[in-house]
């Protein structure tokens, strides 16, 4: 035993030494690192879950946006259609208005023309009657009753007018 160096005291000493080392390494190395590994595992799991959640959320958002976009497109199309229809209506209205206006102007022109023609005719008739009396008076040089003559002349001119 002596030559092999076996010694119960040393043996006990080394057992205590080793157990002390186990304790030290447990405190300083194993526990912190195993805790860290667990923590990291947990973090990775959380990260994956968060990523999955974010993906689903993004998917939902995308669907929402697409729906909105489609709605906006339809809305825009409707606005365009409405505007085109309104413009068409406006055009037709203005064309009709213009036509009416032109017609009215034409009518009024015609009316005025007619009135003026009647006026002119009336004036001409009086002028002719007066002139006829003057001419007739001068021609026959007689003192005829001017009033009677004018009546006579007017009848004559009316006859002439009806004939013309």
């Amino acid at each position, binding site marked *: 035993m*002596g*030559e*092999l*160096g*076996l*010694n119960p*005291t*040393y*043996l*006990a*000493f*080394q*057992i205590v*030494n*080793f*157990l*002390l*080392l*186990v304790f*030290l*390494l*447990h405190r*300083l*190395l*194993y526990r*912190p*690192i*195993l805790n*860290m*590994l667990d*923590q*990291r595992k947990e*973090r990775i799991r959380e990260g994956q879950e968060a990523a999955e959640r974010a993906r689903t959320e993004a998917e939902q958002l995308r669907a929402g946006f697409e729906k909105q976009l489609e709605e906006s497109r339809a809305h825009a199309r409707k606005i365009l259609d409405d505007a085109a229809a309104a413009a068409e209506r406006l055009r037709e209205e203005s064309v009709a208005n213009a036509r009416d206006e032109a017609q009215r102007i034409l009518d009024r022109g015609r009316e005025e023309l007619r009135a003026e023609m009647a006026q002119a005719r009336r004036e001409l008739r009086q002028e002719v009657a007066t002139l006829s009396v003057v001419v007739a008076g001068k021609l026959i040089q007689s003192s005829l009753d001017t009033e009677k003559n004018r009546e006579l002349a007017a009848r004559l001119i009316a006859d002439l007018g009806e004939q013309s």
Partner: protein
Amino acid sequence: MDFLEIIGFKGLHISLAAEPLFHIGPITITNTIFTAWIVMAVLAVVSFLATRKMQVVPSGLQNFAEAVVEMLYDLVESVVGDRARKVFPLIATFFIFILVANWMGILPGFNSIGVWEHDYEGHELFIPIFRAANSDLNMTIAMALIAFLLIHAGGLIVHKPLGYLKHLAGPLPILILINVAIESFVPVSLSVRLFGNIFAGEVLLLVMRVPVVGAAFMVLEVLFGLIQALIFTMLTLIFLGLAMSGEHEHDGAHA
């Protein structure tokens, strides 16, 4: 007895027993205990530095320490499963301590830095200050005893005392004698194997102190140091796994 003189190396000296260095009160400190302390101090300091500022994204020393711990933990878990957390500190410390102590023993200065003393017969004796911790049977037996207790404590806790007795008695009750004998020799073989390899390595390096050749043997010793650490740890782990295994087959099989 001078081991090296017997095999023809006069002047060289290495004894099977660890040499006493100094005394603390009633306790004599040998050079192997001293070296074991150095190993412990180195491991404690490195561990402290590695885990001082733990970061979720590891770098440098923390990364290395995590790699080692995770590798060992996976190994333990692959054998004992859910109970890995309980036995891991002991198993991992077996590996780390034996490996670091073995590799430290290869360093220059081990077995070569020392003092000359006179023994009680007046002979000059060379006392190396540094000597590989596992080249002392006290160290290896200490660890083998702890391993032995761990193995059977594990078996007792998993199977309960009566169940463990049945476990030892399987598959035939008469085999309990053989099983107990086998179990008893586990720590003997563990301790003597480790001691023999490391002691032989020391002697080898001492004898082969020749340039180039010595370096080649040092490379071999690095390999042996790792292999011995693995063997001790794996055998302890496997025997522990065996002692704790088969907890369900006893329920009905041994009616």
